[in-house]
């Protein structure tokens, strides 16, 4: 039986090789794929998020951990899919129209994936129509909108309004984040939640799908 605490440690320390090796060994020893995710990957990424919040970790450490988590997820995901296991929730994420910045959005996407969500990443400069299309075709529960610039964050409102106009606003929870975004702005444009950081975004997405 492999020592699965080493998987937790490898993700927290950002060691992709060990994360993949322990995951392979665990699967070979008959550990349930879902138990690997919920028992080890999710808590490990929570710890990474905690360290980021405490400012023990910065973006580079977080990226390495996300990479280690992904190395393990790539082994586990096909097994979960084969077993018909549903993810915690399905999130459509993208940087809003007019904004080409995707560093923050990519971090949030990684953290959400590490938090057990299925993430559909539409990239940057995403039109309201593409968000709506992705939500309807992929049956997503949450939409995560990112913007880096004060001049593009207004596209968040346009996107939320478009969901309203399409009659889909009640079907999804919409969360927003990015450097210039505040709780006050999120409230003003009618978002369901605001995440101050990538780690906070995971906690927020969990709250939104639990409701």
């Amino acid at each position, binding site marked *: 039986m492999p020592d699965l605490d080493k998987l937790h440690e490898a993700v927290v320390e950002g060691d992709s090789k060990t994360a993949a090796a322990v995951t392979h060994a665990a699967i070979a020893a008959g550990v349930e794929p879902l138990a690997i995710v919920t028992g080890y990957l999710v808590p490990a990424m929570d710890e990474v998020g905690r360290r980021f919040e405490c*400012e023990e970790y*910065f*973006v*580079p*450490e977080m*990226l390495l951990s996300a990479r280690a988590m992904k190395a393990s997820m790539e082994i586990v995901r096909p097994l979960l899919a084969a077993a018909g296991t549903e993810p915690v929730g399905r999130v459509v994420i993208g940087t809003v*129209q*007019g*904004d*080409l*910045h995707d*560093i923050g959005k*990519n971090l949030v996407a990684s953290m959400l994936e590490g938090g057990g969500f299925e993430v559909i990443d539409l990239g940057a400069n995403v039109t309201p129509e593409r968000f709506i299309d992705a939500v309807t075709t992929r049956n997503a529960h949450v939409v995560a909108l990112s913007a880096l*610039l*004060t*001049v*593009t*964050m*207004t*596209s968040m*409102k346009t996107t939320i309004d478009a969901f309203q106009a399409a009659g889909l606003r009640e079907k999804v929870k919409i969360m927003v984040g990015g450097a*210039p975004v*505040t709780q*006050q*702005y999120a409230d*003003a*444009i009618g978002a369901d939640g605001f995440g101050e950081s990538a780690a906070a975004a995971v906690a927020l997405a969990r709250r939104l799908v639990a409701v």
Partner: protein
Amino acid sequence: MSRLHEWLSGGLLITDGAWGTELQARGLAPGAAPDTWNLTHPERVEAVAHAYVEAGSQVILTNTFRANAAAMEGDLEAINRAGVEISKRAAGARALVFASIGPTGKMLMAGEIGSDRATAAFAAQAAALAAAGADALLVETMSDVEEARLAVAAAKTTGLPVIVSFAFDSGKNKDRTMMGATPEAVAAAMVDAGADAVGANCGVGVERAAPICRRLRAACNLPVWIKPNAGLPKMEGTAIRYDTSAEFFASHYTALREAGASFLGGCCGSTPDFIRALVRARCASS
């Protein structure tokens, strides 16, 4: 004496304020790339440059922050050339023109861009800016020391003085870059990279700038470039405004000069009024 030290022989130089917000005030659509206006609306870009020269800026930048091949598309050579030409026309003999080079917007360590592509993008932009007659090159709003190294190395091949400036906006005391680098780490790495001056721009506001300036100055012998934001953007309903006044901003003049700033101006949210207030503060203090 190097060109940079010659320029600084008369003491601190006042630089310019924000361009993006000024261009928006002149009709730039939200979400549009300001750099493209160098070709489509050169007279409005020149109006911004001219407003800063009139306000008393001794150094003005160029509207070329995004014009590298990793950050935007288009005829970048023409955009960069026009950017320098516009600022030089506005500056005349009254101000120096330092050409702006911003980050790629992609992360090296996440594999979003390779060193080769980043270097090629910076080198092409630096060459275009230098050929158009910029007095110096400013690599600004950096958060990753490795990316800044590539940009500085590429900029140095032009033979122009190279200033490199980071955004310190993360960590408990907002004294680290997004990538976690401290002023000390930044200063050491940029001395090593061969930069002629090092600095801090953008960030979280003028109140936090003096300690960072002092730490950069203590960590190396290079002149320090300081260009803080006019605070963080605040929302009024769905409208965006910066709540730092020109007077409040300029009230930090003495503290920043004493902290060792050699170049002083404003970043996001600042206007020609901020520069006028800095000029007044300098007169009052001398």
